[in-house]
């Protein structure tokens, strides 16, 4: 009978979620700072980096104690896929909430608009404007105020297995048409797949829609654009890559399957970002790091375009230790930490000056991705940004697996977007 009351329990949970908010009025001040200005207490950091990256970040985070001996850093790794939900649960209930989160750039405006984030101190905000890449800084803002400090910036590229491409006698493809011919050659020569196209995450749809000259929405004119002609072409392109045999895909466990296929040489290419570099190097095919090549994402019929992404660090408005949390964010976004993560994980710094450092300059991945980031398509930093990916994922998966035609998928995605973006065209 326990499970028989699931409906009631759900209702109960909702009711609790709605009522449990409020009530706790924390001073939100700098209770963590002692009179002499020395910070103390515990800073809980929820990090969303992947398995290959997390050890590095944990080490960096815990090194904060060397600067502030009285502050304990509690490092928690929250898998990226579940993180948005977990963070919201924790923030809205207030219990066990982290002090600092690593938020995808798409979540900041959402969390800020819901009142979950504390504004960064004024001097930090000034620094963000002066010393960080402007497109990275933009992602931490909502309605003119700064709520997050950019930690890393990224975009997507075409990862390729140099040896497999050379064996098949093809160059890294520049367009989707070239992907198809290259894939056919690879298939003929090695029997392996050309491209792995991730099918269970709509972020991987963005290079396709940018490639056709489209976008999900146009925030300036408040228009949903995912279902216009370019959008439909993008869904067609996704479907076409799979039906033509150029790409393999999965509707579940896409990340694991993609990395496994690429690392083991089952697929010669994939579209991915710098966050996948450390993990890819761990694979059999890339024991010799030089075998991993990176090129710009293949162009559609209009251009080659990849989304600008990345992660920002933000402080929970209800944190009991805001001063220490802010200091931790300063530290984690400092040049020295950014250079470390560029060196160890090939992640791109957000500080302009970091790119002058020899460790960063010498990283081949950074050398490729930095110009790519400069050209990357900046997304609309609206609160609904993160929410759009869920209905888009449903339609993208349907289109790519053939459960729905590209036209229907585009139409349905547009309809869902308009439900989320009330009042948009």
């Amino acid at each position, binding site marked *: *009978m326990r*499970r*028989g*009351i*699931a*409906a*009631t329990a*759900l*209702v*109960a949970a*909702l*009711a*609790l*979620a*709605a009522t449990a*908010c*409020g*009530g706790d*009025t*924390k001073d*939100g001040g700098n209770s963590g700072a002692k009179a002499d200005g020395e910070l103390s207490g515990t800073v809980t950091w929820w990090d969303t980096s992947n398995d290959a990256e997390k050890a590095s970040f944990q080490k960096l985070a815990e090194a904060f104690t060397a600067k502030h001996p009285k502050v304990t850093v509690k490092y928690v790794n929250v898998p990226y896929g579940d993180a*948005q*939900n977990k963070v*919201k649960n924790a923030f*809205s209930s*207030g219990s066990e909430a982290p002090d600092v989160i690593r938020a995808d750039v798409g979540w900041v405006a*959402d969390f800020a608009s*819901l*009142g*979950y984030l*504390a504004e960064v101190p004024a001097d930090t905000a000034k620094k963000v404007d002066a010393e960080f890449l402007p497109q990275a800084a933009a992602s931490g803002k909502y309605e003119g105020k700064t709520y997050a400090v950019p930690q890393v910036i990224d975009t997507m590229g075409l990862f390729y297995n140099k040896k497999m491409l050379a064996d098949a006698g093809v160059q890294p493809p520049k367009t989707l048409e070239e992907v198809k011919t290259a894939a056919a050659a690879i298939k003929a020569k090695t029997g392996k797949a050309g491209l792995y196209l991730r*099918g*269970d995450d709509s972020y991987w749809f963005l290079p396709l829609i940018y490639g056709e000259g489209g976008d999900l929405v146009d925030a300036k004119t408040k228009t949903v654009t995912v279902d216009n002609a370019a959008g439909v072409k993008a869904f067609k392109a996704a479907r076409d890559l799979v039906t033509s045999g150029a790409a393999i*895909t*999965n*509707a*579940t*466990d896409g990340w694991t*399957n993609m990395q*496994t296929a690429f690392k083991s040489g*089952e697929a010669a290419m994939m579209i991915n970002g710098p966050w996948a570099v450390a993990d890819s190097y761990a694979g059999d095919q890339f024991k010799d790091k030089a075998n991993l090549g990176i090129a710009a994402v293949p162009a559609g019929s209009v251009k080659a375009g990849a989304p600008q992404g990345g992660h920002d660090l933000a402080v*929970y*408005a*209800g*944190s009991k230790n*805001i001063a220490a949390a802010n200091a931790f964010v300063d530290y984690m976004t400092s040049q020295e930490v950014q250079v470390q993560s560029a060196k160890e994980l090939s992640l791109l710094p957000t500080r302009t000056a970091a790119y002058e450092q020899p460790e960063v300059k010498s990283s081949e991945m950074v050398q490729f991705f930095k110009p790519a980031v400069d050209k990357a398509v900046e997304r609309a930093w609206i*609160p*609904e940004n*993160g*929410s759009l990916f*869920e*209905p888009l994922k*449903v*339609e993208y*998966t*349907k289109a790519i*697996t053939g*459960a*729905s035609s590209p036209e229907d998928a585009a139409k349905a995605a547009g309809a869902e977007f308009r439900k*989320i973006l009330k009042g948009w065209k």
Partner: protein
Amino acid sequence: MAAHTSQSVAKAADGETGPDAGSAVRGRSRRTDGNAGAKAGGKSGGSNRPGLKRALATHWYAWAMITPVVLVLGVIIGWPLVRGVYLSLTDATERNVGRTIGVNHIEATYQFIGLDNYAEVLADPVFLQRLVWTVTWTVACVSVTFALGLGLATLLNREFKGRAAYRMALILPWAVPGFVSVFAWRFLFNRDNGILNKILEGGGISAVPWLDDPTWAKIAVIAVNVWLGVPFMMVALLGGMQSIPGELYEAAEMDGASPWQRFRHITLPGLRTVSMTVILLSTIWTFNMFPVIFLLTRGGPGDSTEILVTQAFREAFVTSPRDFAVSATWGVLILLLLTMFALVYRRSLRKQGEVW
């Protein structure tokens, strides 16, 4: 559950007061207690409501026993239920419910909007799609689980070597935590690296897109749920079978009844009470079986395996701002559907003379 419990409480109360009022002898014999109670309780004049007072006084211990249960039920089921129904009549979302987080204070601005949410949900074709699949999924799961459970119980309901070991093995799926089993199945089903496809490929059969194709994904989720549900069915039915007197079988055998006839005319009727109950329970569980669907496919590919409860979850927790009102609406609709089902089911049983 809530409705059922309160009914049985009411029934119990009826049962207590009914015969009491009717039987003069018992009433008289307890009147002394009643007076004692009145005296102990103070000097309130007992003239205005003697019936209630007497009932309270006579059965004070029963009321005292029941009170904590009623209170707990009220707090953990009644209040959230009322609150949920109220929320479903408003436009509450994560954005407009009031709260204070640190320095940020947000006013509550949600409003009562009547039945708009219900109209919106019911008018959306999504509801019908989800309902059709939920019913299909429930019927498929329950009937297959029941058939397999019955078969296994029949096999185990006899003496043979190693019976205990077989029983243990068959109970195992039930002992493993649900999410562990579901994740294990997810690995087995993985198209590129899963063991099921490796076996198929080894046998020269091309890989099956278990979780990537809508139809296969539906078959996969049903298979996992059946796998999880069979032990319960089996144990319950085995218990039922063992309570059927052996003499019936002996007598039938003497009369020359074939094994099938004995199964058909003794085992099945003898199991009726048990099977009706387990079918009802299993139907309700399956209807709301969130973890299997959510953990195995997340409702996908696309939204093809999304059932009503996972949809309610999606409304509440996936999109932002979280839509408490619409999610509560889905919750209330699910509750109504299940209540209706339970009522109809109970009525049809009563016609056959079974009342629980």
